[in-house]
């Protein structure tokens, strides 16, 4: 009866559906998503009631910092857990391309993050009821949030494949995510520029390395090609590196 091996996308779909269901087996995903949602909504409500701002600017500007903690907690288990429980051997001996495994796990993590973003819909509804928000700007903000989340999850997947210890995977992912996000903070840029006067290290890191300038462009409604290329390119590169690393773990 031996069936034909599945193609890249069909294989990824099988893996993604298993992974997505597995998030909720442990309950950790449910708890962390609810906690992140409460935090994200309270950030918005705080600005909304205290400063009287009827837009999602404060939400989107603070979201990256929240993601630095929330997304590594999600991505840490992607590969580290498989290696710790030895199910890695089961997974990589299935007739699926390594790319399907990596893509499937990434899509499952992205879907969970997507659920978190859907959970912020009450904010949008509230804004629409109370005023007439710029829907294009809102859509652009959500696209930015999705792309930034996708990048951090892809990096988290890569770092999770480096270790069989979830804590190590979490710390590594949180550090790299923090570097990408905090390097966009103007105060940090000023400090780094001051430390290495003349070299403008902070500015260089901000312009070349940081995700925040690209994220802010998108949040501001400017869907520039460099910003899209930054997120899509780095996400694809991280997934390709993860595929290479997982293949090497086998051999």
């Amino acid at each position, binding site marked *: 009866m*031996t069936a034909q091996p599945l193609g890249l996308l069909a294989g990824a779909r*099988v893996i993604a559906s298993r992974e997505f269901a597995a998030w909720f087996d442990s309950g950790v995903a449910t708890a962390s998503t609810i906690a992140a949602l409460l935090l994200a909504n309270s950030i918005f409500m705080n600005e909304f009631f205290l400063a009287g701002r009827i837009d999602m600017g404060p939400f989107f500007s603070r979201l990256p910092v929240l993601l630095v903690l929330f997304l590594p907690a999600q991505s840490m288990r992607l590969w580290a857990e498989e290696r710790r429980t030895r199910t890695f051997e089961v997974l990589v001996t299935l007739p699926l391309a390594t790319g399907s495994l990596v893509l499937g796990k990434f899509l499952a993590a992205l879907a969970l993050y997507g659920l978190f973003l859907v959970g912020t819909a009450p904010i949008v509804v509230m804004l629409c009821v109370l005023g007439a928000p710029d829907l294009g700007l809102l859509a652009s903000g959500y696209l930015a949030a999705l792309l930034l989340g996708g990048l951090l999850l892809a990096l988290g997947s890569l770092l999770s494949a480096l270790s069989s210890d979830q804590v190590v995977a979490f710390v590594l992912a949180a550090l790299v995510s923090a570097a990408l996000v905090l390097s966009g903070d103007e105060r940090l840029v000023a400090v780094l520029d001051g430390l290495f006067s003349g070299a403008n290290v902070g500015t260089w890191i901000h312009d070349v390395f940081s995700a925040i300038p690209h994220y802010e462009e998108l949040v501001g409604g400017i869907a520039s090609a460099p910003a899209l290329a930054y997120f899509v390119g780095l996400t694809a590169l991280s997934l390709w590196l993860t595929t290479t690393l997982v293949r090497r773990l086998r051999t």
Partner: protein
Amino acid sequence: MNDSVRPLLDIRGVTKRYGATVAVERVSFALEPGEIVGFVGPNGAGKSTLLKLVSTFLVPDEGSIELAGHDVVKEPLAARASLGYLAEHNALYDGMRVLRYLEFVGRARGLARAQLAERLAWTIGACALEAVTKKRVQECSKGYRQRIGLAAALIHDPPVIALDEPTHGLDPLQMAAFRDFLRSLAPGRAILFSSHIVGEVCDTCERVVAIHKGKLVADEPVSALSKRATAAGRTLDQELVRLLEPAPTPAPKETAR
């Protein structure tokens, strides 16, 4: 071995090294359809390494392995599709329900909906899993876990079956049932199963392959082994153990002072 029949599992001159340690060295043997071969050797002999090579989890440094005509390095997906593999530690997704787990393995192996339903019904019945299909894997006993692993290995009706210590965790009654079950699977398939329980291997298989320190030390029918043992006044177990024991090293000569 019949030269006209193409082997379903063909291992040729396979070597695997871990750094400076040679885990498997130039091992060659083949399994034809209908054969059940016991793979024996002491702990650390290289049994699991060789089975991991067969499963494509590891890649050989030298030599080649073909599963139903598919090279494990050149066509890994087709080779994996031809194999039902139960790994040494039988790792399972503990949080999943048994039925969901088997469905997942079947879908990942490319079974269409109708085929999957049919194979699920067969494997659940054949591995006697009816009582636990709705339980989570972590709630199942060791014996059930072993049977879940076996069911996952058989869900796609593979022509080649490689089982690493499949009777680990089974009670004597379950072991006897397992032996009958394995024999019933044999027609048209090649089955390689490792064990360090010599009696179990001899009861189940027609042929034994023995490995020691990574090298093949025996590959012969159980009947030949049995005949030799009788002639030498030894039991089958003793004869097999004798094959696996290293030849005694001659004591160093005492030098005159």
